[in-house]
């Protein structure tokens, strides 16, 4: 009899995780139901007793919330990501991230698209990076914060904002944006995607293992993630 697994995963992982799940389903004959939403919403639901078998967060902070419920059977950091500066204009020249970067000149009065800098991980990392170079205070008033990375990406893709800060994984898949710089890893806390197994069913264990299989790693890396094994 086929097993079932319910996965709660950060929305930004959808493309890659769908593929991983598909190949897992094909291999095992089991089926995976993946609920994509914000990491925080999912964490709260798990805390409230949601029937999730696996949780993958885009934010170590929410993983702690889940851990406190005592439901976590196994946990590890699954993936890492990098932060990039993207531009709408295909002709935009490459820049170097550093204390001398004149973002305001780049923006020419436009907005810098980011995710919510106090609550969405991509925004938090971006703010930390800009602050690291002492750029944040000057640029803060010109930052347009979207509620998730995809919305940030959409702003740049549509040209509503000339520049934006997103994950490398998001920039890879969107042809209408161009990466003009990658933030040095030491400019912000490490970007980690922790995964946790919340139940002991066979399917859950099998899926949890599949996440770290070489096949999965290939899929994740094709999307621009770094695998941590």
């Amino acid at each position, binding site marked *: 009899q086929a097993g079932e697994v*319910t996965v*709660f995963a950060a*929305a*930004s992982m*959808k*493309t890659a995780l*769908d593929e991983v799940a598909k190949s897992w389903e094909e291999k095992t004959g089991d089926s995976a*139901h*993946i*609920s*994509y*939403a914000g990491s925080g*919403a*999912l964490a*709260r*639901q798990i805390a*409230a*007793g*949601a*029937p999730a078998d696996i949780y993958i967060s885009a934010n170590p902070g929410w993983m702690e919330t889940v851990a406190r419920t005592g439901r976590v059977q196994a946990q590890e950091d699954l993936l890492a990501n990098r932060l990039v500066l993207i531009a709408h204009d295909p002709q935009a020249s490459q820049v170097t991230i550093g204390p001398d970067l004149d973002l305001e000149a780049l923006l020419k009065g436009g907005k810098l698209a980011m995710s919510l800098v106090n609550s969405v991980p991509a925004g938090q990392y971006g703010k930390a990076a800009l602050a690291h170079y002492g750029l944040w205070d000057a640029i803060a008033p010109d930052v347009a914060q979207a509620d*998730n990375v*995809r919305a940030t*990406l*959409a702003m740049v893709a549509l040209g509503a904002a000339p520049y934006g800060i997103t994950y490398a994984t*998001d920039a*890879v*898949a*969107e*042809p209408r944006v161009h990466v003009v710089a990658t933030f040095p890893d030491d400019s912000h806390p490490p970007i980690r995607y922790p995964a946790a197994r919340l139940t002991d069913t066979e399917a859950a264990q099998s899926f949890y293992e599949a996440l770290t299989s070489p096949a999965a790693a290939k899929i994740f890396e094709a999307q621009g993630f770094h695998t941590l094994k």
Partner: protein
Amino acid sequence: MNWLSGQDWQAVALSLKVAGWATALSLPPGIFVAYALARWRFAGRSIVNGLVHLPLILPPVVTGYLLLIGFAPNGPIGGALAKIGLTLAFTWKGAALAAGVMAFPLMVRAIRLAIEAVDPKLEEAAATLGASRAWVFATVTLPLIAPGVLAGAITAYAKAMGEFGATITFVSNIPGQTQTLPLAIYSQLQVPGGEADAARLVVISVTLALGALLVSEWLARRIAARIAGRG
């Protein structure tokens, strides 16, 4: 049709089910509350009125969060319901509850306006003919407010079809169980280049809601024509 995946069809079917139940189940209390607000003077009237409007005022995420707190399996109401075998959290029933709660103020507003437009003199006339209050309501008030009830129900249905924030916060986004059309659209938007897929779902969602809207308009028109003596 090959341009919709099986999962998409699931979302369509689920949305129809969720919006249908949300509308159907909130209609009787909607009518009751609207009637009470329109016609009765009771202590706490303002409080009831405020409560009804709350889902309109609150960001949907907050409403969803409050539902989650209340109706989660380990929440106060959810626990009690679980004992009678009714699980709302993370099921389509919960999605219907969220949609119903979000649509409730719209429904009540429409029905209440309709009730306030009914001439109490007609209800008095029915009473002198021997009809009790309940009977007057069923045979005079209700038929006269039918267009308003229809308007309220269809507004609620449309709202339920489009409800996103409270639903994803309360019942999560589980394909086949709680992934309604708006949630499916959201999921698609998370995929780079998913806009085309999302657009298809948007078209379906709009078609379903507008279809219902047109049918209801036509119905309301017929009712009005009958009352105006043209039918």
